[in-house]
């Protein structure tokens, strides 16, 4: 940095982090930001941060302030999607067509085998 000078040890680490991020940003393979895992988690596992796993008052951003953790139709077709979500998912639509889909499933942990396929 030329104009903002790091003074203490933590600031030096922040400067190094910023430089490292800038270096990575120049990598052409990484220019799609919307769905990718945040850079500091690149080496770790991908945690699904979908709706059923977090408290999120709005859906606009995930709890990291980005969009990477929001549910995607291809990867978030999970049990919780069936109740009130309008987003088309591959689970039965309990609002309109299959209101009794979970009728035999009082507790998902115990009764998940009773969630049957739906035939049109």
């Amino acid at each position, binding site marked *: 940095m030329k104009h*903002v*000078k790091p003074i203490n040890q933590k600031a030096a680490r922040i400067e190094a982090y910023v430089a490292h991020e800038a270096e990575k940003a120049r990598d052409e393979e990484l220019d799609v930001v919307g769905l990718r895992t945040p850079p500091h988690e690149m080496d770790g596992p991908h945690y699904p941060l979908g709706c059923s796993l977090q408290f999120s008052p709005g859906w606009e951003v995930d709890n990291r302030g980005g969009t990477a953790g929001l549910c995607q139709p291809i990867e978030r077709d999970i049990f919780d999607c069936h109740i009130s979500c309008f987003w088309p998912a591959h689970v039965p639509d309990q609002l309109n067509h299959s209101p009794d889909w979970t009728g035999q499933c009082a507790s998902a942990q115990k009764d998940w085998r009773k969630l049957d396929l739906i035939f049109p």
Partner: protein
Amino acid sequence: MNPPVATGAPDATDAGPVLSLRDFHPFEAYGARFLYMVPSAGIFRMDDAGGAVLDALAQGPRGLDDLVAELGDRLDVDRLLETIEELTEIRAIGDPGAPRDEAPNDLPPPDFPLNTMVLNVTNKCNLACTYCYEYGDDKIVDTQYGKQPKFMSEETAEESVEFLLRQSGEQPTAHLTFFGGETLLNFPLLQKTVAYANRRAAEEGKRITFSLTTNATLLKPEIIRWLADNDIGVTISIDGPKPVQDGLRVFHNGRGTYDVVLPKIKELLATHRSRPIGARVTLTQKHLDVLDIYRHLTEEVGFFEVGLAPVTTQEHRDYAITPESKSHMLRQFEELAEEWLEHALRDEHHGFTNVTDTIEEIHKGVSKAYGCGAGLGLMGVATDGEVALCHRFAGSPEHTIGSVSEGVDREKQERFLVDHHIAEKTDCHKCWARPICSGGCYHEAHVQYGDSSHANLHYCTWVRSWTHTCLEIYGALAEKNPKFLERFGA
């Protein structure tokens, strides 16, 4: 539920992306402007372009183009744009709608090593200091009729040493502090434990260092000799000149202790040269002449270091420090801090440890998840071998997290770590001093609010003022004597 919503570009106007100030605390030294970033605790120095950008954004958020137009007649546009980019990178400025930065809400790893163990070798004391948190009005544990033995046994002390060696994990060094009651009432145990610990540490290829806290009444030549020979760090609890010391630090019959301890302390200071000897002062409403106390203890008695702490007690006690007195005390702290800075600028030692400790934390840029290391890197052991969060809670069943024979109850420890994490302290979320304070002392919280996880709200103003003062000192050293700061870097 969470359907994906296209958010598009961040808030933008015709004047480019909108910028506003983010989370930091500004301070100055010798005309230079610095930012203390929250919650990262990084410190950056601004040049005049950086200062101009921050001043402009202090008037309210504005678009990039407007900002450049506003400042472009005074500053070179390229330099301005670079400065804005750098300020954005360190997150001093940014999108007004961006979420606040919070430190990660992570628990420390389960094998976090124990660094310091405080051994309450006795819960008896030969003094009856009015304000004592162990025997006074605010005590947590019934030290007189409670179930704990009055003295720790040799067996428990040895088990404690084993516990420390085990819990210190891969760390090559661990620290053992003897505490009480009056520590020296159980001097035979200290001798045996130090010998045992040295032997066992050597067998394990480790090193254990020792220290103790004492009221100095029982010091005698052979004890002082032993302390010096074994490199035992010594902290003396003492409140100041005779009228101050004799006010609240008294024997059971009410007699003051000053005349008894003074010659013993002088002998200790003259004989024990292997480790610096510190004084630990409890400040109360009765005696708040901080400067007088400090000068007496350093210049007249000869202590190398003096640390001062306001008494922990409920507000209604007559020795509890009133809010007005807190500001008076703060002014005197600031005066001493100024003196500390003058010494540091000349590369000289100054014994006011309250500054030294804070400067070290500022230099490293610590951003704490917990107010202190209690229950994690530091634990207190009661006379019966129960392990508590720290020495102040030793013997309290509510704050026990295991025993030296059976180890740490990981479930209890984890519950403690979850409940006391800074992320749980909503009062602290908007405070700029949270990287350093992190809600404060658990024992202080327990005495004041009956809940150890409560933030120390009665000290907020004090902590912010004091941290600001120490930041200014840090900035001054960074400007005029940056080499001095290197000694805090290790």
